[in-house]
Structure formats: C-alpha cells, structure tokens
C-alpha cells in the first residue's frame, strides 16, 4: 500500500523500518491535496517550502537511524487556531486576515522538536465557534464521504484532512466537542485530553476554562503518538498539569478485561438517531466481548450541559475576543472620528454572525445585575455536572460510553440558520469539557447511506491511557472495513 495512505501508527512503523521516506510521503500527501482539496477545502494554506525542508532533514535523520521520535517525518496539519511563527494564522476569521504571529504555540514547537513535518493550516469555524465549519470566514469545508455534507466542526478542516488522507495526523481544539464531533462525522479517531494535559500557550483562545488541544488520526495508535508528543507541563500555561506524561503507545495493546464501562441513560434519550444508537450499542457489545463489564449509570445533570456551556463559554469568549480591536494587529476598518467608531466598524466588519451572537450573549451574562443569575449559576451547575461523573467513577466505572454526536454528517446549510439545532450537535460532548475530563471519539460503524458514526469514551482525569486502550480494543474488536471515502475511491 502507498505509505501516505497508511494510518499514522502504521506509517510511523514503515518509516522506522525504512519502508518509507519522509520526503516521498510528503510529496504524495501534497499531490493528493493539490488534486482533491479544491473539492474538500480542508486547508486554508499550505506551507510547502517549510514542509519540504523539514522532510529532507527528517530523511537524513532517518537514514542515519537517528529519528527524534516516532513522529519524525510524519506530515501533520494544524487547525488555523495554532500560532506558527511567520505563518498566517486567522482562526477562521476575517479580523485576523493577514496576521502573522511572531511566535510558535507550545504544541507547534513540540511537534517540530519531535521531527514532525508541518504541512499547513486547516479550516475551522471562526474562533472555533460552530459545529459544521460553515462559520469559517473563508468558506466551508466539505465531508470527504459526501461533499454535500459537513465534516462537523469546529475542527472540520483537521478532521476532513485526515479522512481524505491529505495528512496522516492533525491537531485541533475542543471546547465543546470540536475534535470529537468532526472525528465522528468523518470516521476517524479524535481525542480531547483532560483540561490541563496539553498547553494552550499560542492557541488562539475561545473559552479558556474549556479549550483543550488534541489530535486526529485514522487510528488510535496515531492519536496516542501525537498526544504523547504534545502533552505535558508548560511554564507558559499555568493551567497545564505537572503530572508526567506516560508512554501511551506502550500500553495500547494491553487487554481491557476487568474494566467497567458506564452507559448513562441520559445520553441515549430523545433526539438520538436510531442508526447512531444501534452502531454505538455494537461498539459497547464489542467492548463487552473484550472482557469489559457494562453497567447502566445516570448522569442526571448532563441535560443541563448545553445551557450551562452557552453561558460559561460565551462569557469567557466575550472577554477573550476583546483584544481584536484593530489597534495592534489584524484588520482595521476605515473609520472617521472617534475611537469608539474605529472599534465598532472594525468589529462589525471583522467578526461573523455567530461570533457576534456569542460575544453579545457572553457580555450579557457577565453584566452587572445579571452575573449571579447567569454566570455564577452556570458555574454551580458546572460543578454538579462534574460531580455526577466523579460519583460514577467512584462507583467503579472506568469509562463512560455514549454516542459522540446524535446524528451522522448533515447537509451543508441544513442547520446553519438555526443556532439552537446546531448547538444540539454537542449535547453529548459538552458535559465532558465542563467537567474537564478526557474524551475520545472512535469509529463504531456506518449508516446505511455509508456515513461514518462515532462512539465516545469519557475517562477519569488524566486517564488518557485507559481511554486509548479502550478505544484501541473497540477498534480491534470491531475490525471495521478500511473503507476509503468516496472521494478517494473515484480518483
């Protein structure tokens, strides 16, 4: 098989064995992207020059048998939310058009240090606000399985690029489901680590207490390798954890027999597409066959998660996005007269509708006289949502399992004019961010129409290793056929 089509974990082994050369893999990736990305629109921009130089340097290290890490020479794409020195970084927004950060995000630096080949910046919903990538100021990304459908969001470009085999691995961010939901909708693996596991330094902020960086790959092993490379304490992010980072890959194949899987009834209720439920139940059965105990549980406060999320996330966003005022960087609208006029015109022209909606919501939630009723109350509910999970874990549950998204990929335009329907995409993923827990989406099957379905596993804080093992067990037991998206089969 063409090594550039291999899942990241397998590609890493092929590189180790000298069966593939980084430069050759990169060229395959670039040429596939050149051929097909006109249809998908996963990338906002490619950094071919830098990528080729990095791949050549990796060729030499590999030839000397001195790779820096299992990622040495592996092409990786970055959501356009990660600052990369000298490379335009827009966060999918008009307001940052032409902005070239003078520094690398910590995860970008770590990937470089691991020898990964950074290929380009990927499309996303503006400031990571959205579930379909339709909120990008630069046009939507399409799902490689059906170009009329969305790859999900906000990390839609990161998900689509992996599904279309443009690159074996990408990074995204997940504030309310923005890694797991698109991973489910394009049929790849995507993980949101525990809050604090990965540094947020240099990642354009949406909601600081919820944002977390995580990887996409076609396989669980690829996600494990990427996570190990990017995780760890960063003195530049004081919310990052001091806990040591385990070798996730080493324990990946360990049996999962004896682990207990909790199935929360609140995550299998009204609004869930029966085809999705059926597929996820197949996944649960597969884990049971692997020796897991399945236990019915209740997370009674999770149904309040969406309401809670849209207060906490918007409040933080209203503050985080205040810096885009046209004074120091990014776009400034032509304004006459007052400072206020400059601010208003710049922000009116620079932000899209959804971003404006959330800034307004968040500003309102923090306003004098409303703070207690909205923001403070939301924080209290947030604590209750976390407590539900803590109680389940204390009762012996090692991981909670649920659908990732209530439905498979939907059509572009289907929900874009109905914000509330769009927000329900994240009904199963948002509680995990509010609780700060790790979550992973792993493929569990396909709909009759051939659209991918994802299953979510939620773990104890900093138990990414257990989640990866369970996800790997499901991957192994389900042994889904390695189908290629239609887009690739036709070419």
């Amino acid at each position, binding site marked *: 098989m063409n090594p550039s089509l291999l899942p990241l974990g397998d590609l890493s082994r092929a590189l180790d064995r000298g069966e593939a050369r980084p430069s050759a893999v990169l060229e395959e990736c670039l040429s596939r992207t050149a051929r097909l990305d006109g249809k998908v629109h996963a990338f906002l921009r490619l950094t071919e020059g830098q990528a080729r130089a990095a791949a050549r340097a990796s060729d030499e290290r590999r030839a000397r048998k001195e790779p820096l890490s299992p990622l040495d020479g592996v092409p990786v794409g970055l959501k356009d939310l990660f600052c990369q020195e000298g490379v335009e970084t827009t966060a999918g927004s008009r307001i940052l058009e032409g902005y070239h950060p003078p520094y690398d995000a910590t995860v970008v630096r770590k990937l470089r240090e691991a020898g990964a080949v950074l290929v380009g910046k990927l499309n996303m919903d503006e400031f990571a606000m959205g579930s379909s990538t339709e909120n990008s100021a630069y046009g939507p990304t399409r799902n490689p399985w059906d170009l009329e459908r969305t790859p999900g969001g906000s990390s839609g470009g990161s998900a689509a690029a992996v599904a279309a085999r443009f690159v074996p691995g990408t990074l995204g961010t997940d504030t309310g489901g923005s890694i797991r939901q698109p991973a489910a909708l394009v049929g790849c693996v995507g993980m949101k680590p525990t809050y604090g596991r990965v540094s947020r330094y240099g990642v354009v902020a949406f*909601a600081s207490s919820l944002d977390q960086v995580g990887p996409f790959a076609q396989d669980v092993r690829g996600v494990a390798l990427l996570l190990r490379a990017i995780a760890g304490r960063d003195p530049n992010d004081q919310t990052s954890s001091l806990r040591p980072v385990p070798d996730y890959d080493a324990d990946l194949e360990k049996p999962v027999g004896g682990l207990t899987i909790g199935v929360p009834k609140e995550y299998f209720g009204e609004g869930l597409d029966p085809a999705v439920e059926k597929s996820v139940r197949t996944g649960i059965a597969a884990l049971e066959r692997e020796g897991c105990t399945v236990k019915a549980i209740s997370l009674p406060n999770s149904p309040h998660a969406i309401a809670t999320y849209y207060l906490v996330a918007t*409040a933080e966003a209203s503050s985080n996005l205040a810096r885009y005022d046209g004074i120091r960087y990014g776009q400034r609208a032509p304004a006459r007269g007052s400072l206020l006029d400059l601010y208003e015109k710049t922000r009116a022209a620079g932000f899209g509708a959804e971003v404006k909606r959330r800034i307004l919501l968040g500003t309102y939630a923090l306003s004098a006289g409303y703070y207690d009723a909205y923001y403070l109350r939301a924080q209290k509910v947030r604590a209750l949502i976390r407590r539900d999970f803590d109680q389940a874990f204390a009762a012996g549950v090692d991981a909670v399992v649920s659908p990732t998204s209530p439905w498979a990929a939907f059509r572009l335009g289907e929900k874009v004019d109905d914000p509330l329907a769009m927000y329900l995409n994240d009904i199963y993923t948002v509680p995990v961010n509010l609780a700060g827990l790790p979550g992973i989406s792993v493929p569990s099957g396909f709909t009759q129409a051939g659209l991918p379905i994802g299953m979510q596993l939620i773990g104890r804080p900093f138990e990414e290793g257990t989640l990866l093992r369970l996800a790997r067990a499901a991957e192994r037991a389900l042994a889904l056929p390695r189908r290629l998206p239609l887009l690739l089969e036709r070419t």
Partner: protein
Amino acid sequence: MSIHDWEPVIGLEVHAQLLTRSKIFCSCSTAFGAPPNSLVCPVCLGLPGALPALNRSAVEMAIKAGKAFGSAIAERSIWARKNYFYPDLPKGYQISQYELPICKGGAVPVPQPDGSVRKVPLTRIHLEEDAGKNVHGAAGSQVDLNRSGVPLVEIVGEPELRSAEEASEYLKALRLSLMYLGINDGNLEEGSFRCDANVSVRRKGTQKFGTRVELKNINSFRFVRQAIEHEIERQIAAYERGEKVVQETRLFDNEKGETRPMRTKEEANDYRYFPEPDLPPLVVSREWVAKVQVPRLVELHARIVEAAGPEAARRAANVVTGEVARLVNEGALDLSSPRFQPAQIAEVFRLQDAGTLSSTAAKDVLAEVLRTGKPPAQIVQEKGLSQVSDESALEAVVDAVIARSSAEVEKYKSGKKNLLGFFVGQAMKDLKGKGNPGVLNTLFKKRLE
C-alpha cells in the same frame, strides 16, 4: 450655613508600581524610559494565544506590604478580569483581583505634628497589571506598551480622612512606607506612585455619606491638596445653593487648579469582572508569609520621631532610608532584634545639634550605634570624636596658627579674604579634625579684623 458646617470625607486609592525586575505576567523588563514598545513580548502585547505566567516576586512584595501594614494575608486569592476597551489595554481586559484580594484590612501609620502616630485603616491591597500609555502628538495618537504588565499594588484606604491636609499626610506616609519596604520608588512624576481620591462632604454630625466624586490625574502632593480642596469647596457650594452633587469621575486640571467632569455614573464602565480562567487561584502558604522579611522601617521611623520630636521627621527618614536600609540590605542589621534603641539615634541628633559632633563624626557614631547598640556618648569618648567648640580651648590654637603664618596674615589684611579657609584648615590640622569649623571661623575673623 457656612463652610464650617460641612465635613469632608476622603478615601484614597493608590496605585504603586512594584520594583520587580520583570513584569507581573511575563519576563519583559520593567525599566522606565526605554524606547517605545521595546520592552514587549506576546504576553504583554496581548497577542492572540498568549497566556499570563505569574511572577512570584510581585506576590512577595504584596505580602511585604500586607505584613508591614498588618493586613490579613489571604491563603487563597483569585485573579479576575476587569473588562474595558482602551488602546493602552492590549487584551481588552486588565488582570486584577476583585472579590478575593491578597490583603484585607490593616492600617498605614501616619506621623502627626504632635509626634504621635495615627493609624489610617486600609480596606484592601490587591495585585494587578499596569496598562500601557497613550501618547498624543502631532502625528496622532500612539500607544507605548512598555508599561503594559508592570506589576502594581492597589492600596485602597478607608474613607477616614477629613481634610486635604490629612489626605496629603497620609499619602506622604504611605509613599515613605513603600519606599522603606523597597517595593516602590515613590516617583510621582514618572507615575510609579499614583493616586485617585474619592471625595464627598456631609453635614457635620451626620453619619450618612454624601454623594461621592472620584478625582483622577493627581500626580503631585501639591495637586492632591489643591484638587481635594477645590473639590470640597465645589461640593459645599453646590449643596449650599440647594443643588445636588452628581456621582461622577472628575479629572484634575493642574494648570487651572480645578476639577472637571470626565464621565458620569451612567457613562461609567460596567467592568464585567469575572474570575481569570488563565490563572489558577493564588495560593500563599503560611510558610511563605512567615519567610517574607519585612524591614520594620516604618515602625523604626515612628519611634525615632517619638524620641527626637516631630521636627526630626525628615532627618529620621534620611537615616532610615540611608544607613539603616543599607545595613539591612547588606544583612548586617536585623530589625526584628536590633541591638540599638531608637532613642539612641535621637541622642546622636542632639549631640550633632549641640555642636559636639561634626556631621561626619555623627555619621560614624550612628553607624556604630546601629551595629553595636552602645550609648552614643560612650562611642564619642572611645573614638575621641567629640568636637571642640569651646572658644577658650580653641583660642590658643588660633593664636598659634596666626603666629606661624605672618605672610598669609599680611595678604589677608590687604584684602585676600578667601584665606580664611586656609587658617581654619591649619587649625583643624592641629586639632586633628575635631575643631568646630563654625567657631574657628568666627574666632579667626574677630582676631584678624
């Protein structure tokens, strides 16, 4: 009704820059006067994706202030975002503390004219970052962000001051205290010590506060008095005319010596404070608080003044910020268990005033007192530092000098009056430096004219 029927109520908020080497949330230098925007990085520029990383020496200085003023130091305090738009505020919010500040309560000791010390209570002290500076010129408005992220303590005093004079004395005492602590340079002109005043007036004998007006832009002690005095008069005049005082922020115009409206309550910002999600709660352990050394200079100053009298306040301050601070910083002096008594320093002042000690000798004695705690008189005796001021004792020396310097005496008498220094110098040489130069001067003049 007259002006005497009204009682002013004044509370001061002081912003003091902390003397850390680097900024509060990044490693940029805090130096003053560097070329615009040369001391900046992604963090203090508020670039997308940048995050704050706390400088613990700023926290340590706030602990120092809290300990010095007897505040309660919180084991856990919370960073908060204060949101507002302004070009000198690059993130669109200032990282500050709101509901749970690092220090609560305490009091600033303010020396009184009668030599006693008044304790003016504090509401709180909290940590925050400074904003940059807008520079308005012919080329338009420009922003210098060198100051962005410089650590500040905001020291909020209780509304316990009753006159512009009291406010000014409080500020002077507070400024000196912070300088003694080595946490602020006390420079009002460069803006490293800034003051806002909340002023209201009420009918004498009533308890209820009047409507409060906040005064900004007061950057000298003279202006503090002027601004507050003007504001008190303005408010009393308004009430006496039967008008209301509007709750507002007013700017002091130091050229006109008056205040003018900046914004009313309705125009006031809703700062939308909320806990800063990028920083964990600030945890200050009991051990940390115990370890922070507070040079007890404020107290020492007060006790020297107590012993030496209020007119020695400035002199005491010079000793405390000079020799004492130097020895403390060198580790040669531990003020928690000093060997000397503050009264001994007052005694050195007296010996100098009486002419027994020259200013040089006084310095030597002072250093010895601070190190050993020996009585000054004993040191003077042991070192033979006593200055000869007795005219009868000096006359013999004056005669001897005149006798052996006939050429110089001729020249002096023919008009070279600046030779007086030569004669005094000769006499001092004979006296091994212990002669009182003033007395010698007079004696030579009398003898030669």
